[in-house]
């Protein structure tokens, strides 16, 4: 039955090559912890992606309750935290996941760096990876404001004041992020929400796609 469904789809869209590109590749001995336990260092990249998937899923569920305006943002988070079934767990996963993703990303970066895996021909993938690092730091910065508690508000104010000190374009950056030259308020929350939920994830998906396609084309770096 499943085979018939597969054949029916395959006849129309020739799915086998796509399926081959995604799933059919080799795992060399030196990256396989089943053969060499020290190869667990090669898991960090995959675990980073795993936590990113957790972040995407938990974030999608959080937006079902979260209200991005200054009157209700904190109340909606409080309600989610105290009243909604499993709300505390979903928010906890998103909150702690943000830290775990940074830790995993750092470990992955250090593995690639100390193994010199970014050397020719993998320079471009290293650059994409560092851009991913910046994107995820940006997601951390913009996500911090969204609960709209004191910690969020004052940390964001400090961050925006630092951005303002950038020469020439500092004021423009601050206005772009906070929506006003002076006030950190309703506009800021709306902007940070849009950046956190739409702009940065769009960049994240594009960069992740390139990162993975490049790995598949070049193969994983060989043993030292």
């Amino acid at each position, binding site marked *: 039955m499943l085979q018939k469904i597969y054949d029916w789809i*395959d*006849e*129309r*869209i020739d799915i*086998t090559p796509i399926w081959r590109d995604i799933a*059919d*590749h080799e*795992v*060399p*001995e*030196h990256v*396989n912890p*089943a*053969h060499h336990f020290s190869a667990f260092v090669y898991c960090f990249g*995959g*675990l980073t992606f*795993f*936590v990113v998937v*957790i972040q995407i899923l938990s974030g999608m569920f959080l937006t079902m309750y979260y209200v991005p305006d200054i009157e209700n943002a904190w109340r909606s988070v*409080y309600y989610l*935290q*105290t009243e909604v079934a499993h709300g505390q767990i979903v*928010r*906890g996963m*998103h*909150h*702690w996941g943000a*830290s775990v993703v*940074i830790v995993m990303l750092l470990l992955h970066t*250090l593995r690639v*760096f*100390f*193994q*010199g895996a*970014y*050397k*020719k021909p993998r*320079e471009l993938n290293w*650059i994409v990876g*560092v*851009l991913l*690092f910046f994107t995820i*730091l940006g997601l*951390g*910065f913009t996500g911090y404001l969204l609960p*709209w*508690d*004191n*910690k*969020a*508000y*004052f*940390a964001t104010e400090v*961050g925006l004041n630092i951005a303002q*000190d950038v*020469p020439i374009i500092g004021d423009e950056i601050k206005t772009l992020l906070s929506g006003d030259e002076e006030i*950190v*308020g309703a506009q800021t929350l709306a902007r940070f929400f849009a950046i956190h939920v739409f702009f940065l994830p769009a960049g994240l998906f594009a960069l992740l796609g390139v990162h993975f396609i490049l790995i598949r084309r070049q193969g994983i*770096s060989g043993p*030292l």
Partner: protein
Amino acid sequence: MHKGKGMKFVGDSRISSERKSNIPKDYSEYPGRTEAFWPNFLLKEWLAGSVFLVGFLSMTLAHPAPLEKMADPTAAGYIPLPDWYFLFLYELLKYDFASGPYILFGIIIIPGLAFGGLLLAPFLDNGPGRRPHQRPIAVGMMLLALTSTIWLTYKSASHVDWEQRADANKPVPPSEEVQIDKESEGYALYENNCMSCHGEDMGGTAGPALIGIDYSADEIATIAKEGIGSMPPGQFSGSDEELQKLADFIVSVNEQ
């Protein structure tokens, strides 16, 4: 791939009507003990992922995500702190060479060199050798950057009393905030007679807050006319009927 004449397509599409067999590649000729990703390795990866997920969920259950009081831009004296992974940048700006007139060092030059170096690492460290001892400069710079980052983060975090911060900023449940009906007659009287000292939201400014007080309507009416403590007498101007409405209004807010 079949090319040239004699190709057959499915309908008018560009999909070849010849089916290719769906057999995984043969990895037996690859060096070492190479394994197919699908399905052999994926099963193991799945297991490792499950263990990781259980650990992560246990941590989440043991430590609920923190939430402080609702943001209050007027809360003077609140010491801002970024999330832990920005602490090193925050701490850097406290050094003399990275603040005040040298702020550009702190926000542009030093982080720019560090992160720019990270971004361009493959071009700065472009020798053929991959082993760490074959590229001492790159590895040395990375170790230096890593040590500084950990040191700055530690310096920033070590003098913070995290438990005291959390205790001082516990969230206030929204149900404990009172609702004030600003359309009511009583509030109109409050606005004319009391608001200048007791605040728009009855939270107090020059005078004390009128929320959470333990007086009866008659006592409030007496205080409004005769004053109490440093509140002078004769603050209320209006009829006795209005005085009664005002007192009832203040009591009704406190009953919530």
